[in-house]
């Protein structure tokens, strides 16, 4: 479970099951491991989202413990340490556009929550 995630660039991502839908808390976040990465999973009214758990502003692995909400029409989590907002769809930091945390594509298949084994590229997000 803790082996490094494959970093092979391929057209179709491989999907990995990380947990059951019932492991998530509606309106809140949990942390999960994906290979050697730490991922923050959020169960929102607009679906399940996955971003990096590492908060670049504080240097701690805490984003899964932030409060989820919307800010100027964007779905965000607020870091529990210094309260910067990160967009759940793009990983962008709203206070500092130069800062971005990784995001992973998520699939919910029945009760299973699946993540792509590599993060979304910034280019793909801008498309």
């Amino acid at each position, binding site marked *: 479970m803790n082996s490094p995630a494959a970093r092979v660039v391929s057209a179709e991502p491989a999907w990995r099951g990380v947990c059951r839908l019932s492991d998530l808390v509606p309106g809140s976040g949990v942390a999960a491991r994906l290979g050697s990465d730490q991922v923050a999973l959020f169960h929102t009214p607009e679906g399940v989202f996955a971003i990096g758990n590492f908060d670049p502003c504080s240097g701690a692995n805490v984003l899964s413990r932030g*409060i989820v909400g919307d800010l100027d029409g964007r779905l965000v989590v607020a870091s529990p340490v210094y309260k910067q907002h990160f967009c759940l769809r793009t990983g962008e930091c709203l206070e500092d556009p130069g800062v971005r945390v990784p995001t992973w594509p998520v699939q919910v298949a029945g009760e299973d929550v699946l993540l792509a084994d590599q993060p979304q590229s910034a280019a793909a997000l801008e498309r």
Partner: protein
Amino acid sequence: MNKPRLVVIGNGMVGQRFLEEMVERGHPYEITVFCEEPVPAYDRVQLSSWFSGATADDLALTSMAWFREQGIKLVIGEEATCIDRERREVTGSRGTVVAYDELVLATGSYPFVPPIPGSEREACLVYRTLEDLGAIQAAAQTSRVGAVVGGGLLGLEAAKALQDLGLETHVVEFAPQLMGVQLDGPGGALLRRKIEELGVQVHTGKATQHIEDGADCRHRMVFADGELETDLVLFSAGIRPRDALARDCGLLLGERGGVVIDDRCRTSDPAIYAIGEVALWQQRIFGLVAPGYDMARQLAAGLCGDADAAFRGADMSTKLKLLGVEVGSIGDAHGRTPGSHSCSLEDSVAGVYKKLVISEDGSRLLGAVLVGDTGDYGSLLQYCLNGIDLPPAPLSLILPAGEGKPALGVDALPDSAQICSCNNVSKGDLCAAVSGGCTTIGALKAETRASATCGGCSTLVKQVMDAELKRQGVEVTNHLCAHFPYSRQELYHLVRVNELRSFDALLQAHGSGLGCEICKPAVASILASCWNDYVLDPRHVGLQDTNDNFLANLQKDGSYSVVPRVPGGEITPEKLCVLGEVAQRYDLYTKITGGQRIDLFGARVEQLPAIWRELVDAGFESGHAYGKALRTVKSCVGSTWCRYGVQDSVGMAIFLEERYRGIRSPHKLKMAVSGCTRECAEAQGKDVGVIATEKGWNLYVCGNGGMRPRHAELFASDLDDATLVRTIDRFLMFYIATADRLQRTSVWRDNLEGGLAYLQAVILEDSLGIAAELESQMQALVDSYVCEWKRTIEDPEALKRFRPFVNDERGDEQIVYVRERGQKRPARPEEKAEVTAHEPQRVLEETL
């Protein structure tokens, strides 16, 4: 074509700022920097913080990596020793030769050591560099007494360092008063009194004639009229420009030193510039960092092609905290302008002195002196720098805050008014940024850098922003956030009157969107204040801040701290042992809090339930240190033991703490009970303070410590036990019902129309006819109290939240600790990198 070569000699604060200004402007040069110290630029202004725990890393202003990234060559640990102006070459002490097309001198200054026989003795030191700090610390280890020569700004900073090192500290000043440059006689006298109260002994009017062997200490300083024995002497009697390099190569110097520069910072050689404390501009050396930064900015702009860039002098006004005493000096502090008047205010009880220097016609502020309270500094500086018309009675500007004090409307400031002097941001710059879309303080700060350095102007920045938003027709409301068009008080009533039990119900009925980190915790708190449901109920769990969510306090590394309740600060030896055993078992960093409790740091999320199982088994309850709720009721030992106590303060404190524990409020609440008027529990610094009298209890309300300390006010006298409790019940519920989000009782009271008299009418005389209702609401909260931790460890669903990862039971291996003073502390980034790079496996195992 080759790039032009620029050499900078010196990498102090100004030299570094110059490089940053060049980088920001996309300079065209190949830059080489000589830095004689073994580390690149650090913050000399904050040097004394090194002795109170700051590290060299905390002080660092840059890093070797920054130089690499910017492609700037750094010659480190090598002093430039020779400038050959004909060949245009600089030679270093280790033989490095660098050719230049243009050269910048940023060599700064050195501490002046008066020519006193004996000044070269052992443990006679100066205070300027990180290396000096090391020498001072080493000498302090074999010293009991330390003396600073020089009672100016730098001397008093040095005195703080000696005090932090635990030495008996003396300040020896040649002039008849302290800080003679910035303060007048009465200001200097008050400063002296205040720092003597802090244990520093001041000797003014003392010229040291020589230093010889002491009898009880290492040295004896001999004055014309007396002597002083000391183990350590620190010279801090002013600075001198480091102009030897310039002198040797024949640049024009001032009569008393300093490299002469023009408005473009150019020396007598047009290829050589000088900035900072080595530079002499119009016969003046500027010994503060802000003017040096301005020179750096102007020179960088000039070299990057701005033909208008020019240094035009600098305001030497200063505001600072010396040994904890606030001191401010503005403009013509001594009233030397012909015909000027002055008016002053001296409150020797509060320890405050303020003086205004006013122009002959009474219309303009020329200068000011502030000691003990610099709250007025920002607005006075604006009056002075911008020539704003003074109000008819200028004294009102320095009266204590309250009725009759005219506020300096930011509308009165011209657009050119400098709001942030650290980063040279004007009111016009701020207004432009607000127009450009910066409508929050965070955005404004990121865009303009205003208030990003010392933060002293942040209030003014907010006022400018609010005024500009208002001018543009943007409504400034007290609405909680974008999701609810109501104030906290209105939402509280909606929840209570309509009996709404969840965030979703409130949002559906009265809000829009999904909510955010502002409204969710605020509504969670309102729901708890009204209904007292379990905070980790699935309906509420997503609303809570992480502290409430994990019933512990988040620390910077992602771990938590645990504070069990110790009502009234009374604890049995058995329970004290349990805390020690738990701390040992889980290796928790242990510290006594200011509220008479014990804080256990460094617990990872997954350890919290096990820790609390042990604590609950031993009879501990949650301390709610994580919540906006009652923290502690501090107490003195009271009449049970104390010879002076007149009531059982511990018993009353325990009763109050157990009555109000767990109740959620708009902000944290602190209380204290003192057993007599000596007030050892410091009850007058609390939201609710109780002080015993012969006849009962005096109740004080709305005090707080922290950033803006405020004394509590006497609310009612000589209450019996039952009346005291009834009054506090009503007071707390009224606060909970009407305060704004995150508004402490002190600010709430200041914003209550009618002030204390109104509050007394509502609470004591029931002028609104709500007292019975407030009492029954409080009783309902008291009756429904459940220890959140006890409930949580019995609830398997709630415990799931404490798994480190949803798919892995192993904890976060990136939380790494090192040992210091016998306990663990979070590893700093470089320590973490080192540990994980060398022994990743070991760390992993230790952490798991």
